[in-house]
């Protein structure tokens, strides 16, 4: 990539857990600053494993993790510290991601200590950030269990931004939120993205959220990307039958029952024993003999790539 300076990317990443579960089975994906990328998939797709690999929580079995052009696969201690300063993560359950016996103030000061930053210079910025997130100073003296779920979410976000990272990985950021407040969180992320020109990766199973707030999207299934591209294009005209089925299954308000729903049969196969050929062939409505033996590779253009021998017609 030409502008690799402002990118975090994985190349042919594979992560196999002990026990033989191939959670990530050869994935290349890039996230640029100022861009929001969505990672969509059902259970067993490996989306969270991939996200954690980006912050260095999962060690690649093979392949590369490159941050701003630097290969971090070997991850020395210094590399790791640098990576973690540049790439931060917010976890699915914000409350349980806060160490229970530390006050909010200590939790927020931790990144400063860990990375040996100048406390006098950083702390005012942290307080600014808190104010912008709608948290009062009174919260600083509290313990995590004394604040509300919404406040914990904000503390987790503030903590991730203390080191002034370029990239933010958000694992299911709206899980468990009511519709009336999920917009608030997404607006907040969008606002922070503009201010800090962050590159944000949103991992989610909520297609409405992904479709609305991301620039690019990658659809994962059993450790592989089946389709990826510009969100608009992929959502309007999916080329992979799985993407199509996923979008069709997404419940939308449709009291007149106008929409013909496409329902996939069968269960999601176990990632420890993925099907041969195309991983999706056991549930695909358009499956043919070739799909059972030959694994399709991602083809297409920068705007939309898909891994299918018999892609759907482009609507455009």
């Amino acid at each position, binding site marked *: 990539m030409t502008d690799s300076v402002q990118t975090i990317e994985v190349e042919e990443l594979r992560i196999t857990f002990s026990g033989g579960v191939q959670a990530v089975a050869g994935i290349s994906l890039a996230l640029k600053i100022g861009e929001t990328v969505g990672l969509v998939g*059902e*259970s067993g797709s490996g989306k969270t494993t991939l996200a954690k690999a980006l912050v260095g929580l999962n060690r690649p079995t093979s392949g590369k993790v490159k941050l701003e052009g630097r290969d971090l696969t070997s991850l020395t201690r210094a590399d790791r510290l640098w990576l973690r300063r540049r790439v931060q993560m917010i976890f699915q359950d914000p409350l349980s991601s806060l160490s229970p016996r530390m006050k909010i103030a200590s939790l927020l000061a931790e990144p400063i200590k860990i990375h040996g930053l100048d406390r006098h210079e950083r702390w005012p910025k942290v307080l600014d950030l808190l104010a912008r997130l709608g948290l009062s100073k009174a919260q600083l003296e509290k313990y995590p269990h004394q604040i509300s779920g919404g406040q914990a979410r904000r503390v987790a976000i503030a903590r991730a931004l203390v080191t002034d990272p370029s990239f933010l990985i958000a694992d299911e950021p709206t899980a468990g939120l*009511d*519709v*009336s*407040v*999920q*917009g*608030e969180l*997404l*607006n907040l992320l*969008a606002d922070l993205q503009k201010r800090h020109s962050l590159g944000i990766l949103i991992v989610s*199973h909520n*297609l*409405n*959220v*992904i*479709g*609305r*707030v*991301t*620039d690019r999207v990658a659809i994962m299934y059993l450790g592989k990307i089946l389709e990826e591209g510009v*969100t608009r294009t992929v*959502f309007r005209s999916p080329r992979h039958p799985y993407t199509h*089925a*996923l979008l*069709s*299954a*997404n*419940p*939308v*308000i*449709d*009291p*007149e*029952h106008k929409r013909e*729903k*496409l*329902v*996939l*049969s069968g*269960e*999601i196969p176990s990632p420890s024993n993925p099907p041969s050929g195309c991983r999706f062939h056991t*549930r695909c409505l358009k499956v043919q003999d070739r799909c059972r033996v030959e694994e399709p590779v991602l083809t297409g253009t920068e705007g939309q790539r898909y891994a299918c021998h018999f892609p759907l017609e482009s609507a455009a």
Partner: protein
Amino acid sequence: MNRETLVEIKNLSVDFSTAKGALHVLRDVSLSIPRNRVVGLVGESGSGKSTLALALLGLLPDNTGEVSGRIELDGENLLDVPPEELRRLRGGRIAMIFQDPMTSLNPVFSIGTQLVDAQRNRHPQLGRRELLKRADEMLKRVGISNPEARLAAYPHQLSGGMRQRVMIAMALLCEPDILIADEPTTALDVTIEAQIVRLLDDLRADFSGSIVLVSHSLGLISELCDEVAVMYAGKVVESAPTKILFGNPRHPYTLALLACEIDPEDEPGEALVTIKGGLPDLIDVPKGCIFAARCPSRFGKCVEEPPLCEVEAGHKSACWLA
């Protein structure tokens, strides 16, 4: 279709006792559930929708304080029924599907045993062999292939979608008059959720009872329900046949909820709609309209509590502007 009422909830109020005082979880809720229909209860957390479902089942939690009003099933007030008889009703006329089937299936008994036990209230005269046969047929009907093997299996050996199918089979084996489904697809993956939604939709056709579907998902409600009641902070604020409710919502809360629903087709970049403010205090409940503090259309009269009034045939809204 004529609308015959099966369950009539009249002025139901439920308090939970907490350290800080009585929490008024449901206040003066009236709702009728017609025979042979699917009624949706939709609302956000704290709306009281799950409490209402539990009240229907007679399974209110231990810390329940004062309960007043009536829940009439064919004219009989369920709140007066002694616990022993209520227990019999639950396995017979009333059945429930929970959000997480793993926690509601007993891990130490096989699926077959649990499906047999579920029918004992309904068919005390039948032996295990007959009951197993019925279970076998029901598993086929809910789309489980190879039912003989599944009957011998234990809950942990089944996938989440399969377990939810078993729960549905178990509920249907009771041949209930009323089936309560509390967030039945929330724990499932999208493609599996679609399967369960289709299954519920298919089953409606030859299911003689009523279904109460509790969900936070307007999409799911719109797909499955004949009628909808929108709940907010322990009140029903609007109820109507589904098409009317989504086509012509008459309560500002319903309108706001619909506006918050994210449509991926919208242009990105614009800020998403939210409802400002938070839930009202349900211990010291504010006077007047319960939604007033967050309502964009608030005006002088909202200091008085608006009753749930019919605004057109079958469509009720608790708003002075409706």
